């Protein structure tokens, strides 16, 4: 599964020790806000936590959940990525006869 294909309209937030530039950070705390439950589930499948130099601590929330618990303020997170909607291009039928 391609990450790009499922990550449209998401917002990625770093928090914790890496976000504070701590020299002894032992893991990467990342929150991703998603537009739907299905998108959150697909991102969980698509992201490989072993691909980074430090262990990844990943939280996936919908924008609605994040807003209600005020996740950005509580976690003092920084937006590191805001992805645009994925545009899909329909295949144009061949005009060859």
């Amino acid at each position: 599964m391609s990450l790009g294909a499922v990550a449209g309209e998401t917002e990625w937030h770093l928090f914790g020790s890496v976000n504070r530039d701590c020299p002894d950070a032992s893991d990467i705390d990342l929150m991703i806000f998603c537009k739907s439950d299905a998108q959150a589930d697909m991102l969980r499948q698509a992201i490989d936590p072993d691909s980074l130099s430090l262990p990844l601590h990943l939280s996936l929330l919908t924008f609605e959940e994040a807003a209600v618990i005020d996740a950005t303020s509580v976690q003092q997170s920084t937006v590191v990525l805001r992805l645009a909607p994925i545009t899909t291009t329909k295949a144009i039928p061949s005009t060859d006869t």
Partner: protein
Amino acid sequence: MGSVTNWVAEKLAEDEQHLKVVGRTPEEFLVIESEDSYIFLVAVLGVQDVVQVSHVQPLFGGVNKPQLVVNVPSKALWSGSAIDFVHSAPSAFGTMGDIARAAATKAANSFRDKSMGFFINAMEQHTNVSAVSYLYDSVFRVDRRNGASLTVAVIDAYNMSAEDVRNARTRVGHFDVIVKSSSYGSITAQAWATAESMGAQALTFGELMKRLSR
């Protein structure tokens, strides 16, 4: 086992955890030295789904025994029986990220995940609990003196979201209670509702302690 062991050795060489791979045993265990000269053996498994006793047993049949067994990918589960076997060796289990944590203890075979250790101790000390056993690395069967046994899934999250609950169900199957490891943060209304739709409860640590009484 060779390629995944090489991958871990390369990762350790790249990062700045102050660990060096100084050799390999004939069993292909990594000989790791920390910057304060603590040396220990790490066995690397590459089990994709669930680490079982049959995966770990052969690691302890040779001359050298690993003090720590790690599995890649870290998403894979460890079965309770595999964990019990490793602990009885005595040894420790974990993920690649745990190698540095185990090194810091200077007794790698006694390394235990801090947050899980906290939960196990707290549940074992509960007056209505007679036994706590691992089903998976973050899922426990809790036998109670009064009341039925409960299956408790612990998630490593500051805030518990609905996705955390669904992901736990997909990975470990049935649980009665899902609890987050951090005492701080929130459980979203959606997480609570998702758990309820599965016939389970999403609880904080304090709520779990009360639930064990009832």
